[in-house]
């Protein structure tokens, strides 16, 4: 399993840090590390309840090998910021759009990821599909995502069907003055 650090110096390097703005926002961690699929699967399992529904995956019904295979198939990028996991998957039908996932309510790592995707990967549209009641909804709301729909009974978990809330944001709506994607060279 591999963790690499995202730097903004080049697209192939890997640490996004936000030391300059860390004092301006309440954030548990602003150092984001990219995980390979095997490491991402292990962290998703460790995330327990918060990992269920992340990019449509579920560690309760999928073993680590299947999680890793699905992440690879989707060309997902998964990042770790402290205990928080963040993910993005390109929309194959609209390469400028990415599906985004998160496992906690902390908005700052999410804002950094969105900035990275905007600035370095040319994404200008972001969609999040969040299980109803998930804590990460607060992070999306803080980053300028708007609720655009509800998929009724979209997923089955713990013996019941559950709604999934669809959020959307466009490039420019999530950025704040404090959170331009700063870089550690």
């Amino acid at each position, binding site marked *: 399993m591999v963790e690499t650090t995202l730097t903004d110096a080049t697209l192939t390097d890997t640490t996004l840090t936000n030391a300059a703005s860390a004092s301006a926002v309440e954030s548990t961690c602003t150092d984001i590390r990219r995980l390979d699929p095997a490491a991402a699967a292990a962290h998703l399992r460790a995330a327990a309840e918060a990992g269920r529904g992340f990019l449509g995956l579920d560690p*309760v*019904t*999928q*073993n*680590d090998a*299947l999680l890793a295979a699905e992440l690879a198939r989707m060309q997902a990028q998964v990042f770790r910021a402290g205990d928080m996991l963040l993910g993005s998957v390109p929309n194959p039908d609209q390469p400028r759009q990415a599906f985004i996932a998160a496992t906690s309510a902390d908005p700052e790592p999410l804002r950094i990821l969105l900035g990275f995707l905007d600035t370095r990967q040319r994404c200008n549209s972001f969609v999040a599909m969040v299980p109803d009641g998930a804590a990460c909804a607060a992070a999306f709301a803080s980053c300028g995502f708007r609720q655009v729909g509800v998929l009724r009974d979209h997923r089955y*978990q*713990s013996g019941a069907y559950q709604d999934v809330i669809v959020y959307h944001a466009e490039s420019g709506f999530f950025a704040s003055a404090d959170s331009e994607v700063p870089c550690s060279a």
Partner: protein
Amino acid sequence: MFGVTVRHFTQADIPVRTALLRESRFQANLTDFAVVAEDDALVAGQRRTIEQEHAVKRIFTLCGPNDQVLGFAWITSIDWRSQTCELSFGVLPEYRGGFGAIAVAAAHDYLRTELNMRVVINQVLEHNTMLHSAEALAAQQRVRCPYDSYTVGEWRTSYYWTTTEDDVRQHHERTETRRREIAERIRARRTA
């Protein structure tokens, strides 16, 4: 009451399950294919299930209250569209009896509440009374299949039955009724 948890089978579990596949009662009661399989082949087969066979077969590890491995459950004949599968068990010798029934219930519960299976097919060889008494087997079997399996030098008759959502609901109702009756008896004794 102690609980049993169900988790995904991992590579770390392979040695324990391989030893179980070679255990004498397991071979008589389920299958004895491990007698003629090399260790490497048994390991490779289980790794293949973990890594590649998610759509057709899954193995789960049954754990006790201290996360100790009690045994394994595995599903085969999976029909995702019809939401049915066949469920099998192998409990480690030291935990047979005490944890057996709870482990069976935990596995059924997982299949229903997380994998959304509606009908679970059970199969037990007639002579195997490790998890079900002979009377219970005879009472719940729906299909009796002579010459179903050949294990440890003998042809075995097999019993098949299904567990449906109605069965689970009725079981829960019976359990709740029993619980209420016991609670009322205790209350009556205290007030007497």
